């Protein structure tokens, strides 16, 4: 039997509501102006993924439960009466993953067995975050201790005991960050990537987990990984980036393990990641970024915001203008270009 993979730990943010929607790309208020409306209302966005496919944007948005009604009303006011999928849930984040596909693959395996889970997920440089339905949170927490080990916490009970009383402290830390020009710890980017969109039946998520483990055997790193909602019932869309140079290997793995899945590839893309203090808990950060990118006509292909980071995908030819735009609206101490396969 394979011994558990040792990780740093995990966190759960409870009392949140997941909202998903799909909007045509020709609706120009989406997603940039839409994210400004969210910011103007002071709604925190602890988790968001956004992906463009077939001339439509698909959005997974998570807000605190107390903001759910306000968010739904805002969506209706700005976008009209549209079909919204919503669910009460929690965000599970495991740390760290170092862009290793096998960790995301294992997490998909574990959560996929819980039935229809996760509802949404995204990776950031520090963590993998999965949105779960509220009623499976305990089961998911317990299941994590089978493939993973978490530092000093040998059992789910150890972990639960250690979390008591920490939530208040966490909120105080978040609330203390205020600045006019938001600071980021650093901006990293990487080109020579391919963005792959896969549409698959949700029941095949664990097969995707297996494919990710095969990617790991090739020594590949995942610089971007999100889910995007689908209009079709029980279908899911995954967006992820892998190095262009290994294309034949990983496309072969996908075709072998997921023959029923449909794939689309965007070549010559770049990923960027900005890490800042509690980005996921401060309203307005996504809006500032999207407005800046919009100002230099960047064709964003995908975006995620979770934990401390915002990660995005764009055509590689637009990376430089995008970086300059980010530097214009955020205080960026360093810009680091990573090489292919560097976690």
């Amino acid at each position, binding site marked *: 039997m394979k011994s558990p993979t040792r990780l740093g730990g995990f*966190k759960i943010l409870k009392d949140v509501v997941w909202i998903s929607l799909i909007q045509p790309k020709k609706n120009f208020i989406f997603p940039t102006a839409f994210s400004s409306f969210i910011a103007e209302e002071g709604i925190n966005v602890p988790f968001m993924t956004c992906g463009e496919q077939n001339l439509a944007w698909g959005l997974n948005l998570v807000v605190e439960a107390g903001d759910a009604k306000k968010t739904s009303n805002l969506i209706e006011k700005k976008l009209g009466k549209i079909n919204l999928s919503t669910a009460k849930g929690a965000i599970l984040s495991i740390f760290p993953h170092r862009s290793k596909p096998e960790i995301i693959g294992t997490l998909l395996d574990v959560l996929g067995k819980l039935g229809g889970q996760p509802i949404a997920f995204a990776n950031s440089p*520090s963590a993998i975050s999965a949105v779960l339905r509220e009623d499976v949170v305990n089961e998911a927490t317990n299941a994590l201790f089978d493939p993973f080990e978490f530092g000093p916490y040998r059992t789910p009970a150890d972990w639960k005991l*250690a979390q008591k009383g920490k939530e208040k402290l966490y909120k105080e*830390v978040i609330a203390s960050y205020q600045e006019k020009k938001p600071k980021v710890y650093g901006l990293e980017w990487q080109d020579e990537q391919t963005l792959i969109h896969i549409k698959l039946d949700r029941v095949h998520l664990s097969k995707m987990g297996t494919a990710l483990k095969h990617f790991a055997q090739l020594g590949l790193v995942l610089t971007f990984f999100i889910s995007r909602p689908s209009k079709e019932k029980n279908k899911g869309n995954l967006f992820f980036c892998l190095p262009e140079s290994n294309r034949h290997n990983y496309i072969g793995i996908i075709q072998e393990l997921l023959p029923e899945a449909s794939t689309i590839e965007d070549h010559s893309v770049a990923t960027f990641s900005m890490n800042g203090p509690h980005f996921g808990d401060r309203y307005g950060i996504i809006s500032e970024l999207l407005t800046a990118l919009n100002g230099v006509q960047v064709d964003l292909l995908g975006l995620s915001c979770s*934990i401390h980071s915002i990660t995005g995908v764009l055509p590689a030819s637009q990376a430089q203008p995008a970086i300059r735009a980010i530097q214009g609206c955020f205080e960026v101490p360093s810009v680091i270009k990573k090489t292919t396969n560097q976690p």
Partner: protein
Amino acid sequence: MAQKYILVVDDDPDLVETVAMMLESKGFEVGRAYDGVEGEESIKERRPDLVILDIMMPRKDGYVLCAELKASEETRDIPVVLLTAVGEAVPTTSYTHADGMSTEADDYIAKPIDTEGLFEVVTGLI
């Protein structure tokens, strides 16, 4: 100049990654440990140029690990910076344990961590 290696020890993985990102963005190499015992093992495996140490941790807290590092001839010259959180002890570099053992760190950083404050402390020690 050789890249300096800093070990961050905290049982909050989120905070470990935050501090690691801050330091890596300034060119430091960062090691991670998630409690005092892991931190101790990590220091034995590879000697860091500086240790950033949380106080409240399971198995072995930061005060005890710091006192042990400073009591050993092999590790006493490794700079230790304590991380103190809101609601924890008054920020200070020194602490006397109930059994009389004394902790004397080289500096401290209060949470929430300010990027510039962190670099100021770190670059002042290595």
